[in-house]
């Protein structure tokens, strides 16, 4: 147990700081991914001239591995777009970009599942298309895709372990730093894996409960 105390418990400040960075990156990436996914989905479905661009972007984001995207965003974007200007920004951009592709497809299937009659009914009572989307379509899509959105957050957390590769000081980075100080990986890596597993388990269980209770409250049976 001496090793556990020395390598894990005494390092708890570093690990906590790492966990905070992980949560920070994931939270920014998640919010941007939901917004970006919605924009991509709307562009694909309703904006004719942008349709093919949106499809290419969605497919590209979905079909490239996160590590490749992370390195690509980190090394290739700054000279071209002059941004992201820090490793931290590159990390959440890459995570957001990846997830927005998936979420765009989730939203699209949600929108397509809503019967045409509802939009027509909304138009027939004089709602503008924007209002109909906002009041009739979007709430239902949000409810029906709530579980997938929650699931996407856990995917972001899992992928966020890779941001340590571009020296963002997340939990993974801190634990590898400790490994490199003492060269005793057993305790610290096991503890890190346990922290991640417990954290993701809590997040996904809480998210599932939230999604289910929302659906129960607003009248869609839990799937």
């Amino acid at each position: 147990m001496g090793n556990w105390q020395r390598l894990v418990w005494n390092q708890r400040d570093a690990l906590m700081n790492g966990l905070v960075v992980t949560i920070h990156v994931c939270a920014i990436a998640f919010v941007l991914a939901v917004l970006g996914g919605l924009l991509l989905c709307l562009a694909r479905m309703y904006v004719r001239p942008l349709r093919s661009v949106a499809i290419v972007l969605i497919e590209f984001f979905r079909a490239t591995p996160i590590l490749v995207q992370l390195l690509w965003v980190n090394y290739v974007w700054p000279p071209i777009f002059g941004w992201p200007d820090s490793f931290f920004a590159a990390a959440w951009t890459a995570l957001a970009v990846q997830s927005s592709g998936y979420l765009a497809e989730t939203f699209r299937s949600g929108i397509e599942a809503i019967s045409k009659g509802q939009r027509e009914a909304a138009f027939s009572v004089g709602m503008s298309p924007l209002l109909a989307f906002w009041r009739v379509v979007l709430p239902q899509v949000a409810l029906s895709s709530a579980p997938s959105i929650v699931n996407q957050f856990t995917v972001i957390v899992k992928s966020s372990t890779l941001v340590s590769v571009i020296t963002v000081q997340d939990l993974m980075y801190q634990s590898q730093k400790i490994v490199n100080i003492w060269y005793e990986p057993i305790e610290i890596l096991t503890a890190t894996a346990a922290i991640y597993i417990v954290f993701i388990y809590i997040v996904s269980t809480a998210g599932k409960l939230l999604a289910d209770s929302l659906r129960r409250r607003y009248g869609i049976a839990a799937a």
Partner: protein
Amino acid sequence: MWDALRQALDVSVFWEYRTVLLRGLAVNFYVFAGAAALALSIGLAAALLRVSRFRLLRWIGTVHVELFRNAPDYIMVVWVYFVLPLMIGSLLHQHFELDPFVSAVIALGFVYSGYFAETFRTGIEAVPLAHFEAGRSCGMSERLILWRIVLPQVVRRMLPESINQFISLFKATTIVSLIAVPDLMYQVSMITQQEMRPLPLYTGAALTYFAVILVASSALRALSERWRNKIYA
């Protein structure tokens, strides 16, 4: 900006190293094949545990699934590469080492077995109870019922979802470059250090993976669709 963009799209460097890079891509496929075989077999075992009659076995299956479904693949790969050999070594009282390739296959296989177990389980639970009873009333043993009645239906039902999982698994094989398995991403990083031209190399890598995964996933989807139609008809 335009200069950088032109550099990024000038993939002549990428073409120059094509043999090394192709060999790297082949390593991606080897890791994928090994991990997929491992994930399918362990996933099936875990799914069978989860639908078992005994509470203890069901519980073991559930722990397996929750453990590996919630584990990030990167930490598992690192754990299997650095920690597992030390643990085995201290059990055997001798020096023990795992090849990076082998650890990558083990780690990814176990992580994805969690996902496959759930797919198998939903497939098994979707088979009507009457099929089991009919099998039993013809005097089939449990094993025979599993092989002849349940699994053929499960495989057909889980095809579309398992294609998604195979694709995630293939994407996950890129992280094995971080424990120095010489896959495409590893070679790209090495060449970048040598040539100091990250723009075309990383763009080339992204485009290569994009093309491979897009082609593979649409081909697999079309094939499975055709196969399913043929069998259901």
